[in-house]
């Protein structure tokens, strides 16, 4: 068991290491560098040389990679392209804001998805199931910006219940976001619920059709006890990894939604940085998001290992 966790951890670290290499090389391969971006048209001759020297861009790539990754390990991603701001300061509040949004969506979304998925599975092929499943497909297939736009149209413009976009600055107190970020959270919750619900539904259907649920019925176990004690724990095991993927996506990849609602999170900063060709910031954000992705998946792996007795001993035997 312990050895298995260590193995997973090592794999996760290797992946993060590879991500950092890909990001570094990716940026490296692009034409131009931070100096050409800052100096723009002045990026010729002496000025360029001088700038490169001050930013340490003349040293070999390996050295720069080492310095970058070394700093990143301490939470220090250096300066932004214009040389004015520390990236860690820039990113800090944005990370918090993105986490805030994710927490809002997750705290409602996961319980809701589990309930809806279970219910749809138990009422399989009835109108409840059809309604939920169709809803899920719609939520999954309609692009985020479309859903966001429609919600704004309905709830902010026609009904006037909530503000359409977020105007609060990035470094405001968490509570100050409250009425404004609701719509953004709703869009994310919808998407997340749709994905997790479908997964829970199908694995719950499998569980309810299993021999052990049939046996439990024929042992006279009451229906709801079968659902909660026999079927659900088994159905949730394969769902853990899907939930993890969704969470990872929530924590990092919600660029579009943040842009639509003008929400000062990591995603919007990323778009701004890309538009402004602020490559150090792009690198930093990518690294943070990738690390979160790997971390969350790692956590899910370890969690399902801990919860699934079959997986636990199976893996040990295979090794």
């Amino acid at each position, binding site marked *: 068991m312990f050895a298995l966790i260590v193995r997973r951890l090592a794999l996760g670290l290797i992946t993060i290491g590879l991500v950092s290499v890909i990001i570094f090389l990716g940026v490296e391969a692009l034409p131009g560098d931070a100096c050409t971006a800052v100096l723009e048209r002045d990026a010729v001759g002496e000025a360029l040389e001088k700038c490169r020297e001050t930013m340490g861009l003349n040293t070999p790539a390996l050295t720069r990679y080492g310095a970058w990754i070394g700093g990143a390990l301490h939470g220090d991603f250096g300066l932004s392209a214009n040389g004015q701001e520390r990236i860690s300061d820039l990113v800090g509040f944005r990370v918090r804001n993105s986490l805030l949004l994710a927490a809002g969506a997750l705290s409602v979304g996961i319980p809701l998805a589990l309930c809806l998925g279970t219910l749809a599975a138990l009422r399989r092929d009835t109108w409840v199931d059809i309604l939920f499943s169709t809803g899920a497909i719609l939520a999954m297939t309609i692009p985020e910006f479309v859903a966001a736009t429609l919600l704004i149209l309905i709830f902010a413009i026609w009904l006037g219940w909530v503000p359409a976009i977020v105007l609060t600055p990035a470094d405001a107190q968490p509570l100050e976001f409250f009425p404004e970020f609701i719509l953004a959270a709703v869009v994310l919750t919808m998407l997340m619920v749709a994905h997790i619900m479908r997964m829970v539904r199908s694995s719950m259907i499998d569980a309810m*059709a*299993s*021999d*052990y649920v*049939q*046996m*439990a*019925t*024929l*042992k*006279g*176990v*009451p*229906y709801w006890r079968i659902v909660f*004690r*026999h079927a659900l*724990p*088994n159905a949730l*095991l394969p769902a853990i990894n899907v939930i993890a993927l969704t969470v990872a996506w929530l924590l990092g990849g919600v660029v579009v939604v943040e842009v639509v609602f003008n929400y000062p999170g990591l995603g919007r900063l990323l778009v701004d940085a890309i538009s402004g060709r602020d490559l150090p910031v792009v690198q930093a954000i990518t690294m943070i998001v990738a690390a979160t992705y790997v971390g969350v998946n790692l956590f899910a792996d370890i969690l399902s290992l801990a*919860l*699934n*007795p*079959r997986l636990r*001993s*199976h893996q040990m035997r295979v090794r």
Partner: protein
Amino acid sequence: MANPPLIDIRKLCIGFSGRGGTILPVLHDVDLAVCRGESLGIVGESGSGKSTLALAAMGYLKHGLEKIDGEVIYDGVDMFARSPKELQRIRGGKLGLIPQNSGQSLTPTLRIGQQIDEVLHLHCTLPKALHEARAIDLLTQVRLPDPRAILRRYPHELSGGQQQRVAIAMALAGEPDALLLDEPTTGLDVTTQAHILDLLRELAVTRKMAMVYVSHDLGVIARVCDRVLVLYAGETVLIGPAAEVLRDPAHPYARALLASIPRLCDQQLPRALNGRPPSPGSHHHGCAFAQRCALATETCRTERPPMTAGAGSQSTRCLYPDRVSEIDIRGGGGAVPMVCPADSPPALTLKDVTIRYQRPSLLARLRHRALNPATVEGISLTLRHGESLGMVGESGSGKSTILKAIAGLLAPAEGQILLDDNTLLGTTVERRRPDQLRRLQIVFQNPDASLNPRQSVAEILSQPLRLYFGLRGEALQDRMVALLDAVRLGASYLDRRPGQLSGGEKQRVAVARAFAADPRIVLCDEITSALDVSVQAAVLELLNDLKRVHGTAFIFVSHNLAIVRVLSDRVAVLYQGRLCEIGPTAAVYSQPSHPYTEVLLSAVLEPDPDHAPRLLTEDRAELSPPERGCPFQRRCPVKAGAICETDAPPWQETGNGHAIRCHLPLTALQNRICG
């Protein structure tokens, strides 16, 4: 009987909705009654509706099935009319079920203790404090060693036999008056099966329960039941006392079924039952068995026979109960097995073959850690031209592993495999020449897995023909048709895909594919174990024919000792990947014999009410062979002493090529171990 039946099923019809809303019947007008203290066996082949019937007795139908008509009366009240609350009270309490596959019927995320406790909590008036003691008591009753430890285990940590015992303990926890058993020993090793049946018999006698025992195996039914009901295509075709049904059944199907079962004492092959049963849900006029029946007349095809009195106190669904005795029920009434001359030259030689599944890791090698005992070790044997060699052993005996190594799918760690006795074969297929590969063909256990579902029969058969003989066009077509004829399928099968064939037909295609290579040696890996008994006999007959016509040598791996006996010239007995005994079939099946052979032979069940298996050893599951000494040391009923644990036993020759590997002297092995 004076007292009213505990389970009384009347005119039960169950079906499912097909396309277009028509109701397709799975069970048709089934009546049965079981009293307290009585046991009824329900026999049928796959698709006969026997499991549906057992579950219906609990008022339960699988998803998609519905009750069309009839009643299932338990203790005076129709199960289908009871409220969910009442059903919950009865199921698992007074009416217990022991399922077919306990491994999948136990909830994987709950410990055994929690699952037994749940039943006690629901159905038992004992105070909570006594539950654990009761659970331990129950596990002891089903003869599980170390019950306290078992309570803390998860289902997957137990062996198949242990899981089945846990399921029995769980059914007993509700103190049932009636017990339904749905193929509870299918898939278990013979010795384990014999033990479980012994336990069930004892329970039935001591607890005076009503038992309904569903099985495809007449041998099992013979062992545990007072009365037998034979189901065919969802209909009761025969019902009567077990002894009468097994000795002189009054229905042609039951007679043909009996004749198709291979028995240990048979000199001839079992007689095959032609055709296949109607698929579940298909409509038929007249007698369902008419198409396969030797006595069928025109009336049989148009008129559905009623249940009438047959020989003794049986009732049979046959229009000609007086004529049924024309059908021979003796097994071994089939073809004469082909015997190979004892002096034919060797076709395949194995020298000291050892196979390991896990390769030692680098770390283990660096630390000089001792290797785990090999999965298969020191196998030396010779297969002569035209000979069939049977390999028997329980699960984990390494018999399939050896076949894979011979076929070149698995490289042995040590030892040599020689074609004839002089051509060394490469360890894997990549190192063998096409001609060598052609001479050696393998047929797998499960045709569903061994035939590519995306290819038609023509594509499947054309592969070896093109590869080995470069056949094209007309020549290819002719050869394929000839091959299909040889396995008694017609040219019309060429365009079909495996999904459109029955199990037996698929296995014939697999056999035809092997013979397309015109092989000298064919390796058969449990090729009949996925088939129904009646179909199995036909495949055995086919193999015997092919052996006669082509002079092909076979290695025939099976766990069924009766099948191996009728088909083999010589037999090798394996335990935990080591040879225990090898020799001519007659010699192996008689004295003197290795203690393990003796254990296996005495555990065999026969469809004969007078025959009882003997239990010579406990059915402990062993995960890996012992590191030293005799592989059978831990279960041997006649262990010679400490030497069995330290030294590998010597081969002792009894003459005629028969050899036994045991420390005990041959004279001690000469006598049957217990009477």
